[in-house]
């Protein structure tokens, strides 16, 4: 780092630093006076202009043809870089209680695939519900998409059962966006809690989610809340969870996670839990200019 601590011959060395100069402050003063003249009198502005001209010329001569420097001699100031805290703890990993863990878990990205699959699976029960309840597959689509359709104040059932392209578009956006996100969330979190991924992700989470939505739906989307059939809603949520779970389960498993502690399952990056690089000198690192 600092090589002052190295003994010896650098004492007489000097370093070139930019020379102090008054021209910037004169130029700045001139600019301000020029502006101040507008609120006081023209004379001030003229004075400011003179200062600006002088400042510009002076500055110009500072940097051209050569930037002016001053030599500053380097003082020897030994700098010791040390810390009293010499020992670095490691995350303590106790492998004993991990016997009950499953042998394998899944990579994070599998969650996205699961989310997409689950999102497709959800459509089944939802459309089925629409057909059975209102004889229209657009019914559930409009219930979801109606949240964003502006002119729906108090739609009738017949209106909801008809086809509306805005509503379809909005429903697709909401549905696909949410499904992928939830899948991603599953993918990130399930490897941390790997004991019963299907139970957690396929049943418990949908039930919890449905419960939360049940209590809030009246304010999020009253049109949906008035007409929703919660049992069907729950069925489609569970369909999502289970399909997502199955798709994830069919992904290639990451085999080495067998004996990993919780910290490792969280993907924590810390010495002792990741491979150290043998050598990575700056010469290997290219910087983008």
């Amino acid at each position, binding site marked *: *780092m*600092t*090589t*002052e601590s190295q003994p010896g011959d*650098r004492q007489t060395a000097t*370093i070139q*630093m*930019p*020379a*102090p*100069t*008054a*021209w*910037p*402050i004169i*130029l*700045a*003063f001139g*600019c*301000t006076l020029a*502006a*101040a003249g*507008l*609120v*006081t009198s023209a004379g001030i502005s003229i004075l400011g202009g003179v200062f600006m001209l002088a400042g510009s010329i002076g*500055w110009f001569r*500072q*940097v051209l043809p050569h930037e002016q420097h001053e030599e*500053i*001699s*380097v*003082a020897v*100031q030994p*700098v*010791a*870089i*040390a*810390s*009293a*805290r*010499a020992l*670095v703890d490691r*995350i303590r990993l106790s492998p004993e209680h991990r016997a009950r863990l499953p042998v394998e878990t899944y990579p994070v990205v599998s969650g996205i695939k699961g989310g997409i699959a689950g999102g497709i699976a959800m459509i089944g029960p939802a459309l089925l519900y629409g057909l059975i309840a209102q004889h229209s597959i657009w019914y559930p689509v409009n219930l979801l998409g109606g949240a964003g359709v*502006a002119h729906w104040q108090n739609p009738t059932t017949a209106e909801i059962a008809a086809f509306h392209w805005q509503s379809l578009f909005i429903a697709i956006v909401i549905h696909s966006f949410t499904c992928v996100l939830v899948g991603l969330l599953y993918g990130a979190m399930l490897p941390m809690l790997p004991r019963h991924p299907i139970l957690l992700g396929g049943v418990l989470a949908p039930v919890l989610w449905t419960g939360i939505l049940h209590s809030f739906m009246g304010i999020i989307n009253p049109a949906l809340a008035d007409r929703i059939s919660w049992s069907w809603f729950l069925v489609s949520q569970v369909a999502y969870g289970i399909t997502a779970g199955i798709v994830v389960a069919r992904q290639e498993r990451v085999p080495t996670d067998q004996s990993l502690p919780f910290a490792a399952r969280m993907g924590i*990056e*810390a*010495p002792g839990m*990741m491979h*150290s*690089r043998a050598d*990575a*000198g*700056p010469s290997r*690192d290219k*910087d*983008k200019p």
Partner: protein
Amino acid sequence: MADHTLPIPGAITAAPSRGAALLEWLHGWVVTVDHKRLGILYVVYAIFFLLVAGAEALAMRIQLAIPGNHFVGPETYNELFTMHGTTMVFLVGMPILFGFANYLVPLMVGARDMAFPRLNAFSFWLTAFGGLLLYFSFIGGFGLYGMGNAPDVGWFAYAPLTAKAFSPGHNTDYWALSLIVMGFGTLGTAINIIATTLSMRCRGMTLFRMPLFVWLMLVVSGLTLITITPLTAAQIMLLIDRYVGGHFFDTQSGGSAVVWIHFFWIFGHPEVYVLVMPAFGIASEIIPVFSRKAIFGYPAMVAASVGIAFVSLGVWAHHMFTVGMTSVGNAFFVLSTMMVGIPTGIKIFNWLATMWGGKIRFATPMLFATGFLFQFLIAGLTGIMLSVAPWDWQLHNSYFVIAHFHYVLVGGIVFCIFAAIYYWYPKATGRMLSETLGHWHFWLFLIGFHITFDTMHLVGILGMPRSIYTYEADRGWNTLNMIISAGGMIQGIAVLIFAWNLIDSFLHGKEAGNDPWDAWTLEWSTPSPPPAYNFGADPVVRSRRPLWDLKHPNDPDWKYEQ
């Protein structure tokens, strides 16, 4: 902090007379192009105006403590809140953060100076003289009677109140002219910081090894380039209207008041991020050191910062929900505003995760940084509330908004600034600030802050609008306003303690040594205060925490960092 000459070896040879020495010393500061001296000048300048604008705030709080008060008249009150806002944003917030950037960025990237040292001096003096011009308005124009000619149109200066017809005299001109002057200073500094971080890094300091403070300042400077300039442009239009009879904002001739509102907030909202992101940088330096852990999720922190900068460019109209945009327009800005919450949330979680599992020492800098975390969390959540356009129709321009942005600006930024001063003061002066006074300062300020601004949310909910110099006695706001004012006084006392601490510790403080906090970035490898050339030899780094690598040769970061 203030009056301290850095030892320039060989500068002082003989012992001249006292007066001559003083002159010499002053001259040294005036002509300096050293980034450290300019940084200190910025910070001292900003602290001075912090006291001034704080006094203005207290005057306003005295006026509002009881209904129907006659402490100041309406004209004076309007000048006070305009000057308070303008000062705090342009003469305190920006200079102090750019001051820190000036002082720290070259040290942190291992450079000897900024990329353009003379431009640096020029930018500072533009800022300084611009501030003086703004305050000259109190005595300028029509002379000293009353309150002179100080701007009185609000720091947002909505058209057409700024038109000649509604704002005769030079009040508005002072506002626009001084901000244009300062705007060019800021532009210069931003260019300088960008060039320094991109072109002056020491060997091995790749972009992804820069300390987060440097990253944040890089992002902020980039943001400054495209946010300060729209304000300058809009102010030039305003001056064209006022001086040569243009019609940009002249509603009688078809000009539009709404266009000004757009232009102002295209500047004004990113400006908030320009102010708060350096605070993020400060927190990202202090929290790891006092938790004794590396920052958690460095790449995510960088990505979140860049993300905030980008999203912040598309949210300005959330200041305009009541202006009468279309419902689709409103919905769009609701969404974009809420999206800011996501990267901000990432940051808060990452700071928490940095503290998690650490060995946290609550020295004064860390106390302030923790206070920042707590308050910034609340500020973010009230921000989410305000982003809900219908609720904003109620809360906009009420004291709830005042409370919200003071939570960001005081609870967030000012807390971080205090943390930064306690943290880097030893580096700049060679002496520690008193921890006892620091604790007094922290606790009094925290208590005063919460008394004031928590209560402000409530009066806002009870329907009190901002910018009013007095209010009716039967509105049910009396008690709450008295509490707010009392809290303001407590904060005032705390800041005085802080000012005293700065001076007293400078004279009698404990010697700091090079590295009092056992920290990890390059500035702590230099003597305190650093010599003019910063580093005797060019440093070389291999990781984000070069000093950690040196202190722990068996466990260096470069082996593990991604």
